[in-house]
């Protein structure tokens, strides 16, 4: 008795014909054009909206029409497949649209002040009627503050994640993990207030003849508080993805645990860890509130992160966007464009570094 004979009589596993009709591309486009025309006639004819509604309604009509036409030509299963595929593509386009819109707005509005003056001067002595003025001081501030914050948060976060994955057992590890989760939800303003009350008001007077003092370093501390949980959680997830047999393989060679972690586990997870770190850095670079609270903001260039007010790009955008001068909005857009570009360059550089360390297939 062959396999086929033993099949249940009601279940046909072997179709008589493996060929089906396909909906042609012309028919597909025809449906799309028809849907748009009907939608245009409906919306504009009734006068209930403009071209946006035409596109949205046309899209919905296209999906329904495609489902119907394909159902007639190809059969139900193929038609449903088509409809789902169109839905998923639409969702993808819908998700990309806002992103493209943000990039376009930034570039088109930010390009106006993209000149040497913007990158070479500060806002010192720039009045409401002055057309020039730049963000040099803010770029310095962002780079220094985020750099120091990364120096604090990355080692702590990665080591903390290594503890949780490789060593942490029992109650203590569970508690640490719980508080890391809680920390993820801390609003940035709360981190700023914490550093303001702890560092600026209590600690900084010791270094400054009894006077509390704003500093870029205080902003770094606040930013590192915000970065830490993101780094711990993302690194933890990445380390957990490293297969156990890899660790055992190293142990079986007589390699001690710390060396296994350092030379086998972390390098294997490195690309993912770098991605998590860059996400945290990007988030920190865009924070305004903590910088405003503990670094105070400044119009002049201040290279020293440990002494005196500093500005940052995000804070600069906030201040220029709210400024009364008619030249301020252009400066805000260009600063926003600069911030996005800096984060982008850092991310690409980090990814390339991480990839160079791991071999390509």
């Amino acid at each position: 008795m062959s396999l086929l004979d033993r099949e249940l009589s009601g279940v046909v596993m072997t179709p008589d014909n493996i060929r089906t009709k396909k909906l042609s591309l012309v028919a597909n486009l025809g449906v799309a054009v028809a849907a748009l025309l009907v939608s245009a006639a409906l919306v504009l004819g009734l006068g209930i909206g403009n071209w946006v509604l035409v596109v949205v309604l046309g899209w919905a009509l296209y999906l329904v029409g495609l489902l119907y036409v394909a159902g007639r030509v190809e059969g139900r299963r193929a038609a449903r497949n088509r409809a789902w595929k169109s839905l998923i593509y639409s969702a993808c386009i819908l998700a990309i649209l806002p992103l493209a819109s943000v990039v376009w707005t930034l570039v088109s509005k930010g390009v106006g002040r993209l000149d040497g003056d913007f990158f070479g001067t500060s806002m010192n002595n720039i009045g409401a009627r002055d057309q020039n003025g730049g963000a040099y001081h803010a770029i310095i501030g962002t780079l220094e503050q985020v750099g120091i914050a990364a120096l604090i948060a990355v080692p702590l976060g990665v080591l903390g994640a290594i503890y949780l994955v490789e060593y942490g057992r029992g109650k203590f590890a569970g508690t640490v993990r719980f508080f890391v989760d809680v920390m993820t939800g801390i609003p940035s303003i709360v981190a700023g207030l914490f550093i303001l009350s702890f560092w600026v008001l209590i600690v900084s007077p010791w270094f400054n003849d009894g006077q509390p003092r704003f500093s870029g370093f205080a902003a770094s501390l606040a930013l590192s508080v915000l970065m830490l949980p993101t780094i711990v959680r993302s690194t933890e997830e990445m380390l957990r993805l490293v297969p156990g047999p890899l660790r055992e393989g190293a142990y079986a060679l007589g390699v001690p645990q710390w060396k296994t972690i350092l030379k086998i586990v972390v390098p294997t997870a490195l690309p993912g860890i770098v991605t998590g770190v860059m996400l945290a850095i990007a988030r920190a670079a865009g924070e305004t509130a903590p910088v405003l609270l503990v670094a105070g903001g400044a119009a002049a260039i201040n290279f020293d992160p440990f002494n005196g007010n500093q500005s940052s790009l995000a804070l600069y955008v906030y201040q220029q966007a709210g400024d009364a001068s008619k030249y301020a909005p252009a400066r805000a857009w260009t600063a926003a464009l600069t911030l996005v570009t800096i984060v982008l360059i850092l991310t690409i550089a980090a990814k390339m570094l991480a990839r160079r360390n791991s071999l390509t297939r």
Partner: protein
Amino acid sequence: MAKRIEASNVSSYYGSFKAIDSISMTVEPKTITALIGPSGCGKSTFLRSINRMHEVLPNARIEGRLTIDEQNIYDPDVDVTAVRRLIGMVFQRPNPFPTMSIYENVVAGLKLNGVKKKSALDDAAEQSLKSANLWNEVKDRLNRPGAGLSGGQQQRLCIARTIAVEPQVVLMDEPCSALDPISTLAIEDLMFKLKDRFTIIIVTHNMQQAARVSDKTGFFSIDKTGDPGRLIEYDDTQKIFSNPTQKKTEDYITGRFG
């Protein structure tokens, strides 16, 4: 220097579950010993107990004495990493380090244990790859990723990596179960070659393989699921496969059970 391994009343636990029950056996130096038996009877657990790999898993513990040349490896003052340098292990699935090249994989054990001299590493890499019958296939692409090799080549790479650190004992946990017959044959040939230098203990589900390669065979079994595994019979391979003393062994090797 191959070494003698002696287990007396070794029991291993996962938490409160007893996986093997007082196993006692002696493995002579420069022999191949095969451990056979149905799935879940504790062969791998016993194997992993020999180089203290069992305790890597959470809540795993062990009772009894396991000695290598009269030294109990479970004494409190024994350094785990030193034990594992003496007793290497090859796993069921090939596990080359994915971030390393073929060359780096082979010398990983040496390099991570502090050998820095380039010439020594090069020598060790060539010797080990030759011993593992892999040299001719990879000598022109030593800096390609180890994970890019075929399954059989990867397993031989892992064997090369294991013997590069010159252990005295090599444990193999079903090293051929994921391989095709030709790669399996290559690894069996390799085991004969390595027998001159190492003591080899191999866990296998393939009884022909056990009969082909081993000098002695241990048969493990369990009474029913949830019971600890026991060593039913341990004798010369010849005797186990031709004239076993235990009824259970005979049933298993003739295919009437398990």
